[in-house]
């Protein structure tokens, strides 16, 4: 039997359940397990109910399990809410003893989570030296007191079994948002400007902390996107990030960046809408909105990662593509991807240089070329005229009908090149039983549950990474021999199916989920078996 543990740690906001989840994940990570953390939290600061679900397994899984082997309850509500998901032979550790130890040793209330981790670690036979090392690395304040509390909790707990160490090597753990930020940095990101909005905010936090870019908080999303348009016009690789509501505010500027041919990268991390919706929970309901964002006949690059490693590579890829084609690119993430923690191993992104002006003759920002791409120059080097209006080759405004057509045709040729580009790269991935005549098609973070379930049930999986331009050739190639195509999405209208239907690809059955929570493999298996 392959090792596969599921641990839930929950408590009120302010009790440190998320931190506890991360520390537990790091312990398993050091023991050579693959780990994944799903964080569930409410839109409040103190009180309420938050929990993390940690999956520690021999194989790489990209999602949490519905069921838990251990429930670490920092408060009683955690037990009430989650006891039904406890596996047979599962263990609940209630928070009372942790609280008492903290009180006995005059610690502060939040240290209850450390006592809880120590109790749990002893039960599963974690060595004290390793545990204390993890604490030292992860706790920034009051380490002495925390260790004193942890030691007492550890020493008084009985070991139930000894968890097996799998390997010595541990990969770093990153959230999807951290991977997005790192991927962009490695592809040459210079400037990040954003307005806080869950679940994209941690990109802003991470970059502000890292100091590898200029990181600026704008007065609103409209300002953020216009600011990066300015930075990119001046030659710096620039990105912004937001969620549905903020993205809606940015759409006029996407149109501007498209006609002005300014390369920008926008991260749109979806949460459950419409409007304010369920702000700290996940959904995939902005696909059609995103691929149509911006008025006028424009094409953007839109790609959606299914895990942190894809988030890293796609954010770098999109930044490079934005600069190669001088066009807006959108990384379409979702709360589950952005804020879940994954094991991270890819680190290959490189900055690919943009097409630059050869400095001969008068510079024409919008020079009409065969492939529609005009060489770039930046203000300070020569006169560079850029504009949101239709324009001539130099960048002066025009209303002349022939010139309007010539310029739109230039951009259409470029959009065609963008389609060819997507055809050339890995824009679709396939998993599971490649010989099956039944396939599941999915996008974004749903990949985790779909891939795992399909492997159990012997189905093929087609994951669409690029949503615009849509890699129809690659999708159709993988559909050969498929008799039944099932889409799995976290929205209520089947947006991927609608998109595919525009290209003559018929989805036979849809599995849709819109309770603002991601799929778990257990639920998905039941639904797939019913079809």
């Amino acid at each position, binding site marked *: 039997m392959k090792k596969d543990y599921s641990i839930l740690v929950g408590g009120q906001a302010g009790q440190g359940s998320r931190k506890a989840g991360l520390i537990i994940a790091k312990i398993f990570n050091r023991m050579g397990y693959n780990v994944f953390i799903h964080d569930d939290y409410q839109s409040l600061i103190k009180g309420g109910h938050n929990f993390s679900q940690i999956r520690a397994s021999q194989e790489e899984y990209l999602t949490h399990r519905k069921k838990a082997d251990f429930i670490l309850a920092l408060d009683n509500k955690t037990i009430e809410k989650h006891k039904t998901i406890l596996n047979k032979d599962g263990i609940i550790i209630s928070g009372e003893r942790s609280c008492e130890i903290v009180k006995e040793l005059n610690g502060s209330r939040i240290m209850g989570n450390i006592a809880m981790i120590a109790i749990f670690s002893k039960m599963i036979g974690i060595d004290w030296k390793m545990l204390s090392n993890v604490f030292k690395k992860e706790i920034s304040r009051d380490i002495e007191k925390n260790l004193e509390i942890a030691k007492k909790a550890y020493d008084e707990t009985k070991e139930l079994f000894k968890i097996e160490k799998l390997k010595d090597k541990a990969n770093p753990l990153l959230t999807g948002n951290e991977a997005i930020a790192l991927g962009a940095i490695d592809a040459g990101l*210079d*400037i990040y*400007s954003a307005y806080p909005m869950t679940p994209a905010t941690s990109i802003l936090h991470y970059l502000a902390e890292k100091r590898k870019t*200029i*990181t*600026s908080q*704008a*007065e*609103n999303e*409209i*300002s*953020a996107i*216009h*600011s*990066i*348009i*300015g*930075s*990119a*016009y*001046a*030659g*710096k690789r*620039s990105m912004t990030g937001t969620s549905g509501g903020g993205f809606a505010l940015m759409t*006029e*500027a996407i149109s*501007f960046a498209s006609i*002005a041919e300014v390369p920008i990268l926008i991260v749109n991390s979806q949460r459950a809408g419409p409007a304010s919706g369920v702000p700290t929970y996940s959904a995939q309901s902005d696909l059609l909105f995103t691929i149509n964002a911006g008025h006028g006949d424009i094409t953007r690059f839109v790609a959606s990662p299914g895990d942190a490693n894809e988030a890293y590579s796609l954010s770098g890829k999109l930044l490079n593509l934005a600069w190669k084609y001088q066009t807006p690119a959108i990384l379409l993430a979702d709360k589950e991807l952005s804020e879940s923690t994954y094991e991270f191993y890819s680190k290959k992104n490189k900055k690919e240089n943009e097409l630059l002006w050869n400095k001969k003759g008068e510079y024409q920002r919008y020079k009409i070329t065969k492939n529609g791409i005009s060489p770039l120059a*930046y*203000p*300070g080097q*020569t*006169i*560079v*005229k*850029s*504009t*949101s*209006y239709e324009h001539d080759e*130099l*960048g*002066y*405004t*025009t209303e002349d009908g022939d010139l309007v057509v010539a310029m739109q045709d230039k951009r259409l040729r470029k959009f065609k090149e963008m389609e060819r580009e997507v055809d050339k790269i890995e824009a679709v991935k396939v998993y599971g039983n490649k010989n099956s005549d039944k396939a599941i098609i999915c996008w974004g973070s749903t990949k985790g549950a779909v891939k795992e379930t399909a492997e159990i049930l012997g189905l093929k999986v087609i994951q669409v990474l690029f949503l615009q331009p849509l890699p129809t050739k690659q999708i159709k190639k993988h559909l050969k021999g498929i008799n039944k195509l099932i889409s799995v999405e976290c929205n209520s209208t089947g947006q991927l199916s609608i998109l595919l239907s525009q290209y003559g690809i018929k989805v036979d059955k849809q599995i849709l989920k819109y309770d603002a929570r991601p799929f778990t493999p257990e639920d998905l298996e039941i639904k797939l078996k019913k079809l």
Partner: protein
Amino acid sequence: MKIENTWCPGCGNFGILESMKRAIKELGQNNVVLVSDIGCNSKIVDYLNVSSINSLHGRPIPTASGIKMANPKLKVIVSTGDGGSLNEGISHLIHAAKKNTDITVIMHNNRLFALTTGQYTAVSPKGFKGKSTPYGSIEEPLNPLELMKVSKASFISRTYSTKIDYTKDMIVEAVNHKGFSFVEILQPCPSFFDTFKFYNERVYEAPRDEKLINEWDYINESKIPLGVFYKEERPTYEDEI
């Protein structure tokens, strides 16, 4: 000139264009980037041979802030109108002033939306009869200089479009000021709001005095002071970030 000028005959913008030409000559053509809004004023980018980006309505200020952040060596000037900076994009104006972003905002103030054929803006006088307010606007106007003062702009000034060299000098001084500078240029619109006579009778070149910001409240028929009313040195956003 690369393209035909489409401003109305007698437009106040011609004076501003001439002042800008002279200012850019002094500032050095290669280092200047002009960022414009939407409206009659913003056509100025097509009439000047400098690097420029014509942004969207209300948004040139964040575009300019991004340029300055990317390349602090550039002298970044925004050409906007009262509609763009006080109606559509007022939040950007306030925040750029507060941040002390090192850019110059030149507000061509004709006190109405002209390119959309005459509607009231945030600085139109109460009672203004435009196409959307045929019986007179019911709102009191803002004093943009007062707004800039409370928004912590570090350079606040006003000029009049007919005063070519006076305006040129003020633009140069504003651009050379380290920090956020705001230049209001009173700009009559002969087609929809002809204020030439009104201004000619009232404007005067005043000494630097912060209190003069409140002398004319855009309602009364008092004298209208021109000049740099306020100037302070403090670290810029780009210095600190």
